[in-house]
């Protein structure tokens, strides 16, 4: 029994942290957020070189062949500095291809993912905004062996930057008719429209499909058999988002605690007042708790798939509830300074607001916890 990270993982964490601290502190993040693409190709390439983009990609395809727990280590650090990159989106596309792609499909896309040249994403939501298989309404028309897709997906992570889109669609009415297609950016009929984000370090957009032709060799696994994989990808998404939330929350807590130690009012550091001290303690309690839940969920993704959905929902539910509260307290306990653009507090609050609904909010996940927990 060992609920901790290995030495290799701790080393990985230290390396990622060092890289980010040296190259992309928050001033740099702010600058990147003002560019249209929102991230830096050169950092991305370095990330790939260091093996962090292809962390989960099998070694034969140019990756390192590690698991979700290792990715969590990286994501905690990217979350801590709000590092903007298509890492989560690409990891989800990569996970889909790894899980169900044929040898040929893996060989076609995974090396590019691992070396940073192909940015991937998962187009998991439609206008109904219903998560999961029930929300897949994109209905394919059959054209000989191929499928023709016309419709849209919204809230697609890093849509405008992506080269590969993993797109769930239906070829019939039921869950047994759901397939996942990998569609390349240059495909005819595919169009992307970027959308604004409450968290300026994030990019997302709408995907439009107008008679996009999907050949059999672009379908992952058996046509119609993708429902379980799609649900698993949503769990992966919830885990990845929550991993970044841990890092961001911890950074917010550090910022606030250190302010509370130095800010003097009524001749005392405000951190001496229980009205400040106790909310900070609650932040800590919440972070430690959803951290434990998240680590376990990541471990379950790798080792105990039958428990992964419940574990992921618990982690995301707790984080979706706690992180926005942490963001609000971070701004609020600072007083006026916390409300200014120059100060960093609001960056965490905005991440929290962005994070909450992404891959399911607390209402969604608590309901799922209830259902999976047998009531």
């Amino acid at each position, binding site marked *: 029994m060992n609920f901790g990270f290995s030495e290799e993982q701790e080393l990985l964490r230290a390396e990622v942290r060092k890289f980010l601290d040296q190259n992309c502190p928050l001033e740099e993040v702010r600058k990147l957020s003002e560019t249209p693409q929102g991230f830096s190709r050169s950092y991305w390439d370095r990330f790939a070189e260091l093996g962090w983009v292809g962390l989960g990609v099998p070694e034969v395809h140019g990756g390192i062949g590690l698991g979700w727990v290792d990715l969590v280590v990286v994501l905690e650090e990217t979350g801590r500095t709000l590092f903007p990159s298509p890492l989560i989106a690409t990891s989800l596309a990569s996970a889909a291809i790894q899980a169900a792609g044929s040898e040929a499909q893996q060989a076609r896309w995974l090396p590019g993912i691992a070396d940073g040249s192909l940015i991937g994403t998962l187009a998991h*939501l439609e206008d*109904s*905004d*219903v998560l999961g298989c*029930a929300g897949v309404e994109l209905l394919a028309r059959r054209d000989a062996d191929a499928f023709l897709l016309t419709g849209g997906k*919204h*809230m697609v992570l890093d849509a405008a930057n992506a080269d590969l889109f993993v797109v769930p669609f239906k070829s019939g009415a039921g869950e047994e008719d759901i397939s996942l297609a990998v569609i390349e950016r240059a495909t005819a009929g595919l169009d992307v429209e970027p*959308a*604004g*984000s*409450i*968290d300026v370090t*994030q990019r*997302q957009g709408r995907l439009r499909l107008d008679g996009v032709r999907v050949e059999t060799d672009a379908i992952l696994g058996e046509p119609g058999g993708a429902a379980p994989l799609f649900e698993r990808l949503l769990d992966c998404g919830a885990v990845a988002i929550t991993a970044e939330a841990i890092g961001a929350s911890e950074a917010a807590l550090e910022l606030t605690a250190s302010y509370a130690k130095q800010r*003097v*009012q*009524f*001749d005392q550091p405000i951190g001496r*007042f229980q*009205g*400040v001290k106790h909310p900070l303690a609650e932040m800590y309690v919440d972070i430690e708790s959803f951290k434990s839940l998240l680590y376990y969920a990541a471990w379950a993704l790798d080792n105990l798939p039958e428990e992964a959905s419940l574990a992921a929902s618990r982690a995301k539910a707790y984080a979706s509830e706690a992180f*926005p509260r942490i963001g*609000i307290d971070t*701004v*609020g306990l600072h*007083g*006026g300074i*916390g*409300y*200014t*653009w*120059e100060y960093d*507090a*609001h960056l965490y*609050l*905005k991440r929290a*607001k*962005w994070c*909450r*609904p*992404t891959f399911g*909010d607390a*209402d*969604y996940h608590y309901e799922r916890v209830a259902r999976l927990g047998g009531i």
Partner: protein
Amino acid sequence: MDFNLEPEEEAFRAEVCAFLDENLVPDGERTAEFMAEWSRKVRERRWVGFSWPADVGGGGGSLMQQVILKDEMAKRKAPPLGSCFMGLAWVGPGIIQYGTEEQKQKFIPDILDGTYQWCTGYSEPDSGSDLASLKTRCVREGDEYVVNGQKIWTSIAMWSKWMILLVRTSTNVEVKHDGITCLLVEMDTPGITVRPIKNMSGGSIFAEVFFDDVRVPVENRLGVEGQGWQVTVSALANERSGIAEVHGLVRTLSDVKELARSCRRGGRPASQDPGIRRRIASADTRIEAMRLNGMRFLTKQLKGEPVGSESSVNKLHRALLEIELGELALEIQGSRGALDGESALDGGRWQKFSLNWPEVVIGGGTPNIQRNIIAERILGLPKD
């Protein structure tokens, strides 16, 4: 207990309604000409500064008449009465109570006419919640005060012609509240630098204001030297009616309800989601509690009883509601709550709203300060 109006109050309400029927146009149709005309008319009726004494140009309205006037205006979403917000809220009342005859003549008409804006120089970098610890230095030299120091969180300093300013004229005092003096300062006086502060929702309402050997004529002192704290406390007491805030919250909640009807969550209208319904009902209930709390305080005022710390009850409610309604509005939108700007619902109105609470929550004294006021002044618990 009687929520009905007296006959003469009903008559006043009828007068207000008649005026509004005749003169108000719907929200979308209010042109610049309309606004100019509106300002002229409400000023003519003395509804600007309606509660101020008639001899300074106010309306001499009773407390109850003020409530009626504000109530009817809010119901129809009428434009504000007068445009010099802080002048009408506390600078004017402060001048009326503590000012010299000359000061009254010089400032009050312009406040009523909305000729220019006032701003308020209270907070300093090291004096936020603990306002009385302020340090901006002020030394008298002959007929002038010389001011050096810095203010912060000064709303609309960049658009104001005058400032009501608190400075420290003496450090040799037993309690820090003594030794503070209140000055009226023209913003184009040499030595004043204004630097707007960009806030987290992207706008700029606040500014830093720097004072570098700023010379203020002694006749621009408001009240007695060293008693600026009292001037401030009684001026701020005018801020506390709380009725306008309830109207604002009622309007926001009604928009949130509309939002819940139009957004779908998990495949059905958000307004059918029991959790969302519960949160809306809870906000509705607390807003109604604020309205009724306000009426209970008003009743006390009408009876001539002092109303002081009770206003912290509604301030606390309001702070929490501003935060909660912003969260609720985003959560109703599901994953679209993560959008912003043109991509978002109503052009990102709710995203902006959900980031604007600090203006209210921090500006008017933090929730912790309100809790302390209630615990110490009402429940008699020992001071921190």
